[in-house]
Structure formats: structure tokens, C-alpha cells
């Protein structure tokens, strides 16, 4: 029996790794949803409806986790018994902290000046940065087996994601 607790990679027939074939992931997700989605069971018994909801929920959670580089990296660390410690481990390299402060300063200035272009530009630079971190994380997890380094990369990605949310919120606030 397929276990709802089995790892998400196995659910989609993938080898656990940071670098995955996104097209295959998406196709496997669609193939599974096509079979378990509640729309397929709306005319059946309550037992089947309940099972369908459990499975569809599980597939959605698994897909959400593997689709995002940050969540996928975090999940792989968990599978290997490493807690990135988002709340507890705040010791970051000085250069990263400096960079963080610069980002925040730029965000504050652009927000105060209601400068949409500056916010967009910031968002673009952030994405470039995130991509570089993803490449590094792929190397750490899939090649070097450097779990400590990977945990550090994941923490950095978490910072960038938070910043991206703040930029989006600032942009939304500008429009209203």
C-alpha cells in the first residue's frame, strides 16, 4: 500500500535530489491529481470522497514542496536529518548580513519615495541573487554532500524570499 507518509520524491517517481526535471514533476503531479482529485469522486460514496480529499491534499502539498527551490532544499535537508533552524540559527556570514542591510535600505528608500521602478529593479536583482544561490545549493546537495553549507544556503534563500514578499507588498501598497 502506498503510504501517505512516504517521501514526496517517491510519490512522483523521482530520485531525491535538488536538481529535478520540472516537466516530469509537473506531469507526474497532473497524472496523480487526474486520478485522486475530488472532482472524480463527487458522485461516489463518502468513504471514497474522504480518501480522495486526503490524497489530493497530499499531492498538492508534495507538489508545492518540490516545486519551490527553497522548499525543496529545506525538505531535502529534513530528509537527511538536518534542521536549517530558521528561528534559532541566525548566525550568518558578515558579507551576507552586510548585503542584507543594503537590500533593506534600498527597499526602505524606494518605498518611502514611492518609486515603482526602483522596487521592480530591486526585485529583479533579488531574483538573480536567488538563482545563484540555487546553483550553489544544487552543488552542495547533489555533488559535494555539504549539508552544513546547504543549510546555510537555505537560510539565505529564506531571507531573500522574505525580502521578495516585502517588495511585493510595497508594490501592492503603491497601487492602492
Amino acid at each position, binding site marked *: *500500500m*502506498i503510504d501517505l507518509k512516504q517521501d514526496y520524491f517517491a510519490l*512522483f*517517481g523521482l530520485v531525491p535530489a535538488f536538481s529535478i526535471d520540472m516537466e*516530469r514533476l509537473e*506531469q*507526474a503531479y*497532473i*497524472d*496523480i*491529481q*487526474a*486520478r*485522486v*482529485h*475530488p*472532482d472524480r469522486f*463527487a*458522485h*461516489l*460514496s*463518502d*468513504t*471514497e470522497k474522504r*480518501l*480522495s*480529499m486526503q*490524497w*489530493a*491534499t497530499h499531492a*498538492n*502539498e508534495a*507538489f*508545492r514542496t518540490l516545486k519551490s527551490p527553497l522548499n525543496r532544499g529545506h525538505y531535502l535537508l529534513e530528509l537527511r536529518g538536518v534542521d536549517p533552524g530558521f528561528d534559532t540559527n541566525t548566525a550568518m556570514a558578515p558579507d551576507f548580513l552586510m548585503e542584507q542591510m543594503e537590500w533593506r535600505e534600498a527597499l526602505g528608500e524606494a518605498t518611502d519615495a514611492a518609486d515603482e521602478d526602483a522596487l521592480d529593479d530591486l526585485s529583479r536583482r533579488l531574483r538573480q541573487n536567488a538563482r545563484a544561490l540555487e546553483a550553489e545549493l544544487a552543488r552542495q546537495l547533489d555533488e559535494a554532500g555539504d549539508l552544513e553549507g546547504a543549510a546555510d544556503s537555505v537560510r539565505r534563500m529564506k531571507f531573500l524570499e522574505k525580502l521578495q514578499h516585502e517588495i*511585493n507588498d510595497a*508594490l*501592492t501598497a503603491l*497601487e*492602492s
Partner: protein
Amino acid sequence: MALLQISEPGMSTAPHQHRLAVGIDLGTTNSLVATVRNGVPQCLQDDDGKLLLPSVVHYLPDGQIVVGRKAQATQATDPRNTIISVKRFMGRGLKDVAHVETMPYDFVDAAGMVRLRTVQGVKSPVEVSAEILKDLRLRAERSLGGELTGAVITVPAYFDDAQRQATKDAARLAGLNVLRLLNEPTAAAIAYGLENASEGVYAVYDLGGGTFDISVLRLSRGIFEVVSTSGDAALGGDDFDHRLFCWILDNAGISLPSDRDSRRLLMKAREVKEHLSFDESVPIRLSLDSGDEVDLVIDRQVFVEITRPLVDKTLRPVKKALRDAGLSPEDVKGVVMVGGATRMPHVQKAVGEFFGQTPLTNLDPDTVVAIGAAMQANVLAGNRAADEEWLLLDVIPLSLGIETMGGLAEKIIPRNSTIPTARAQDFTTFKDGQTAMSFHVVQGERELVADCRSLARFELRGIPPMVAGAARIRVTFQVDADGLLSVSAREVTTGVEARIEVKPSYGLADDEVAGMLKSGFEHAQADMERRGLAEQQVEAARVIEATEKALLTDGTLLNDTERAALDSALGALRDAAAGNEVRAIKLQLEAFNRASNEFASRRMDKSIRSALAGHKIDELRI
């Protein structure tokens, strides 16, 4: 894609087994019902050959309730008892409703949801909506010649949990079995996408009478994946009428019109707005009860200017939805226009300019939602042919969270999460020896709880006394395929289990809904019982048929003992269904559901394995 209907051997596509299912677009201004007949989706007409049912309900002193065109015709003579645009009040408190000062109703501010005092007593918006739905149910049953198996009811994508729950309750009250609540723009995308075999990223811009939605969807080979959605649940064609109404008052020098004059001016404003979509200038002439004479002319350009802020207001959610999807306007292949208000040329122009392309207006913006809902209802009722497969993946529009210290909202499920979904988060105690914890469930994007919508409050008791911070209370949010939330909480460190499940409501308690069900005059006791029995019998027949079919294909998943047990449960259910005891059928259904759990699990397992196996074959070929 061309959808050929080829039935799988043994599948029920024979006409007598076709289950009657409808899609209902419960609109602010008009409502419609549609079905799929002989593979063709179509809206159903009333006795006068009309498709649109004006969403107007008139309560008369003699206990009669008139719905639709007739009620609309008398709205100016009895405005207080003639409810229009009731959708704006669904799941809303008095403070949430815009322009109350110009509405001719006798509002009663009840907890959770506003009520209206009429000549037939205080009515909740749920009851008023149920009258509209009942009218459509009866129309469908006359037209199709039988009782309905179920209905898909559409809701604005941006409706929150309270509004969705209110809509579902209204449908129950109208005697409908709700197969699914479906988001309006998604319904439109189904109708549009299947018709045009669309592939790629599409935006659906849906400006209805009282609500605005924007959904961004990815369409590919029968998959309708909603990527993001946004909107404004209190912005629609009504607001354009209201601007025009205010312009008329200003320019005719009228202040504080009576209820009747207000309603007549509002009707006039709507009529003038519709004419302005075709004519460059329109005369406004009206004699009021007060003796005032209105004699004005309005140019389209003036109308465009006074309503520009409203059009601009729709573009903000559009930008937000694109940002959430990580897309730019250029990535969008087509923009589907839905809702009567998108007929206004300046709305089309603004949307066209924003996306840099001419919006798609080739589908009737009034009927496309009902058509899409009918197609979905047909699939959900199990009428779908084997290769008529398409899959719908929708999202929740607003984040769901819980109040934490300092009045802050902690998001548990972020907006645009694909449904169904569940997410858990752990919380802990604040004081030593704390044995109870209270939770406040909220919906919205703002950081402060005060700025979000309050959905429910509940308490978890019986937490074993521990030092502060030692207990771990796991709160789980589950959102089902209708976009409706249920919440549970339990303490996980000790063996002691304190557990609670809540369904958020909006002040209309379950027994209140039950009370309404009973008091409905059309639902006389005998009628209720007859309907209850019929429902259980249909349910039992459905389960028996589905199980027999499943046993034919997957019977080998059970060993002889298991098979015998299932057969005996099936026999007991069959016997009960042949009788007239509602309770007996219900009990046997429950017993059968328990007995079939293992079989259903194994079938699901087999199905998922074969989905993955299909993959591995693909890989080998490469």
C-alpha cells in the same frame, strides 16, 4: 480540443441512467441555470422563453413570494419588500455593505450577517438567495422532467469563507444537493477553453453586477490550472449605476429622495448606463413622486469620466494577480471578458490597453459562467464519457490564519494555494499551568487581525498543566474542494487528547439553517420527508452501482473473506434501500462506508501506482 463522447464498456451513458445535474450562476443582477443535454451545454428557459432570471425577490403581505421579472417590475412601488442585489449582503455584516444609506431597506444588524425586515418578517440574505435558487431548481426540474441529482453553484473567486458558506446554505435551503461551489472566472474558463481548445496562459476579467474577479489560468491538454486570483468582492456594475445616480441627483438638484424615488432613479441610472454602451449621448427624463422633474442629457464622455476611478480600481487586483503568478501582461495569451458590466466600451478599452491586446468578447458574457458550471456539474454527477477527461485545479483567493499575541495574524495557508489543501502549525502556552487556549481564525492579507475578516473563535480545553511553552498545540487548517475551511486543534506532547473541530460560520448557526429548512412553506413536512427518502434512496443506488462496477474491475484486490464481508454489507444496503425507512438507509450507508474503506483504499492505491507506471514506460521510450 474536440470532445468526442465514447463510452467505456459498461459505463453508464444510457439515457435512462443520465443523472440530471445543473450549473447555476447565482448573480448579483441576474441568475441562470444550465445543463448538458445530449452532450451539448445549454441554458434553460423559463415559461416565457427567457434565460435570465432577475435576482429580485418580492415579499407580499399575503405570504406570497414573487421572484424574477415580475418582482423587478414592482420594485419601485414596494422597494422595502423587494430585495435586489442580495448577493452583496451574503456573509456580510451591516458595516461591510457599501451605500447602505441609499438603500431602501429596513436593515437589522444581526451578529455575523445583516438581515432585512420585510412584511413577511426578518429575512436573512441566505433565505432571499434560496428563493432565487428554488425558482431555478423548479425551472430545471420542469424542463428536464425529473428531480435533480445535484447542482454546481458558482461564486465569485474572491468570495471569502463566510460568503461561500452562506451560498452553500442558500442552496441547501432551496432543496439542492450541492456538488461543488465553483469560482465564476474558472467556470468561464472551462466554457471558453473547451470551446476554443485553448493552450497557454489566459486571464479571465469578470466584472459582474456586484463583484469583480480576475483569475490567471494555465490551460494545457485538458488541465485548467488556476495560477492566481484576485478581485474585489464589493465592486461591480451596481457601482457604475450608483455613480450615475449621484450624478443625476447633483445635476437635477435633488437631495434626499424617498425610497420609491431612489429606486426609480437607480433603475433609470441602470437603463441609461446600458444605453451609453451604444449611444454617444442619452437623455434622462423622469417625473418623481416628490414633484421633481428630471430632464437631463448625459454624454458618454461624462459617464466615462465619473466612472474612471472604478475602472482603475479593477486594474489593481489585475496587477496583483499577475505579480502573484510571477507573470507580466505580455505573458498572457488571451483575456476573456465575463459579466454584463464588461459590455461597457471604456472597460474593454482599459483592459485592452493594460494587456496590449483586444479582449475576447466572442462568448456571451451573461451566460458563459452558467455554461461552464453545467459542464462541471455533468462531470461531477458522473455523466462524463471516458475520454471526456479534463481536470480543474483551483486555488483559495485569500490567506487563512490565526490570531497570535499582539493582535497579529499568523498566516497558515497562503492565498493562491491549490485546493484541497491542509496545513498545520504548532502553538504553545503562555502561562504556567495553562489548561485552555482560545483561537481566532481569520482570513485576509493584512498583518493586523483587526484588518482581516474574522471567521471563527473557538477554545481548546483540557490541556494538561505544564510550564509555559512546553505544550504543543497543533492547529490544522483543511480547505476542501469547495474552498471551505475546517479547523481542528489538539495537544500533541502528552497522550491526553483534547481535540476540537470547527466549521467557521457567520452567525447563522447550523440549527438556524435547519430551522429555516423546516419553516419554508413550500417544504411542508410531508414534502420534506418524501425528499429526504428520495435523496437517501438515490444515494444508496449510486453507492451500490459504483461498488458493483468497482468489484467487476478490481474484485481481485480482495480475498474471499473480505469479498464475502463486502458482499454482505452491500446486500444489507440493498435491502434497506428497497424499504421506506430513511433512518435504516442512512445507517446501512454508514455501515457500508466503513465496510468498504479498505477496498476503496486499495483501489486508490492501485490507481496511483498505475499513474506512476505510465510514467516509467514513457521514460523507457526516450
